[in-house]
């Protein structure tokens, strides 16, 4: 079953700005889906339409088979949303924010209290339950919004840049939590500017550029499309000349760092063999940029020509 099915979705703002130019998007139930794009590409407009904060101009949206135009209540019951910016009253107590949100969904108070306790504990902010939201740190506020989005136990969770401005430790714990949630059956749509986050978490992705969908595919397939990737090698002993490695373009960054380009038909084993033959000992290896990031930049650049004429 499709968790989300979007057909020819358009949004023209009153200013005349066409934020979405007829996008088609399908997300399968149980998927962890990345919606990527530059700032102003139309991601937040699309999400705004899904959670009915933005009125669409035309097109159809179905969530688990429920039509947004005719079964709005059923659609909303299926969705939980974590917005990009804070949207709660900072003068309310943490626990009350969750209990009230449950109340808006018509969830009885007793159940709401149990769920609030569960999700606040899960997010590690249970001890802050009686404090007003104003007193929370930025990371805690984000966790509060995630807990709030889960209070109606949605089948589809939409996260609009949930880890923006969040420290690394917290980001990793959120990733872990989201992975577990997805494994338990919740479909997740994620927008993010951290492409390593999308690559790590998501199974499928779509890229929006200037209101158009320029890519929708499986994450692995897309990453495999990358013909050449640049890897950085940290060396044990300093090198004062660039070593010649047959078939591998090499660039010496400094005495103990090399950059090597590998195409998809070459293997790391082969590269290591050649490095051994050249007497180079490698103590560390990493991608120069995230693979998805490399592809993303290329796709955007490729589509710049076509969209700039419009």
């Amino acid at each position, binding site marked *: 079953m499709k968790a989300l099915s979007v057909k020819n979705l358009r949004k023209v703002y009153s200013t005349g700005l066409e934020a979405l130019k007829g996008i088609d998007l399908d997300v399968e139930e149980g998927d962890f889906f990345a919606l990527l794009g530059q700032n102003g590409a139309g991601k937040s407009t699309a999400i705004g339409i899904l959670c009915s904060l933005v009125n669409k101009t035309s097109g159809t949206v179905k969530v688990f088979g429920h039509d947004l135009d005719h079964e709005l209540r059923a659609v909303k019951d299926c969705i939980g949303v974590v917005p990009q910016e804070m949207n709660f009253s*900072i003068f309310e107590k943490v626990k009350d924010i969750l209990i009230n949100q449950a*109340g808006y969904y*018509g969830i009885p108070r007793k159940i709401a209290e149990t769920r609030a306790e569960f999700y606040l504990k899960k997010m590690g902010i249970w001890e802050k339950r009686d404090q007003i939201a104003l007193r929370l740190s930025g990371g805690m506020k984000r966790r509060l919004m995630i807990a709030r989005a889960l209070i109606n136990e949605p089948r589809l969770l939409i996260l609009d840049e949930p880890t923006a401005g969040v420290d690394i430790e917290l980001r990793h714990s959120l990733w872990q939590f989201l992975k577990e949630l997805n494994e338990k059956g919740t479909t997740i749509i994620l927008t993010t500017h951290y492409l390593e986050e999308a690559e790590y978490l998501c199974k499928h992705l779509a890229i929006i550029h200037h209101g158009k969908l320029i890519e929708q595919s499986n994450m692995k397939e897309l990453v495999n499309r990358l013909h050449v990737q640049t890897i950085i090698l940290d060396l044990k002993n300093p090198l004062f000349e660039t070593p010649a490695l047959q078939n591998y373009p090499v660039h010496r960054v400094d005495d103990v760092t090399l950059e090597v380009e590998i195409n998809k038909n070459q293997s790391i084993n082969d590269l290591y063999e050649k490095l051994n033959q050249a007497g180079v000992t490698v103590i560390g290896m990493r991608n120069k940029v995230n693979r998805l990031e490399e592809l993303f930049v290329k796709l955007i650049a490729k589509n710049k020509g076509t969209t700039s004429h419009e």
Partner: protein
Amino acid sequence: MNKNLISLQTIVRKEVVRFIRIWSQTLLPPAITMTLYFIIFGKLIGSQIHSIHDYSYMEYIVPGLVMMSIMTNAYANTSSSFFGSKFNRSIEEMLVSSMPSIVILLGFMVGGVLRGLVVGVVVVLVSLFFTHLKIQHPGLVFMIALLAAMVFSLGGLINGIFAKKFDDVSFIPTFVLTPLTYLGGVFYSIKQLPEFWQNISLLNPVLSIVDTFRFGILGTSDLNIYYGLSLVVSLFFVLFFWCWWLLSRGAGVRT
């Protein structure tokens, strides 16, 4: 319990908790203002004024001041609370939920009505320090107070829906509501006006509401109370459906 009832209860509870939490901004000021009105207009100036319809000036102005408090506070509650929710974007919590727009409307309206009535009771209690009140028609008093609170709650909600900045929230109360209230027979009987101004005053809905409320308390009125009642009921329906239509379209809250 029905889902909509739970949602309604949640908004109402939140609204009541809000206006009680900020009691120094919501409940205390009307008590102080009305005490000053009773002292200055009722005692000091009122002692120099003849009785109106056989009631002392103090007795005459009490119903008007109580109704004025109910109307302005019901209005202020919904306009400021709704605009505040828009401003801090917490209104999105309600909009993304599966609660229908009619429940949002009713929730805010009931919140405004409760604040209006609580303030009304506070002002009645304050008035008892200055005069004796013997309510002639308690049923009518309750009905007109409730209807007026509902009408002004809805008015405040519409103001909150259209408001884009804080100035917009205070514009209508300052430039429309206050003049209408002061010219709405709170402090005088329209019988004291020349005929031309009496006829002009009839266009002021606040006059009919105050006059009907005064009839309920004192048993005397300048106008036909059925006119006042039908006007306030009509206003309620017009504002209610307008408000519902605005919220259903997402006016002022959806892009």
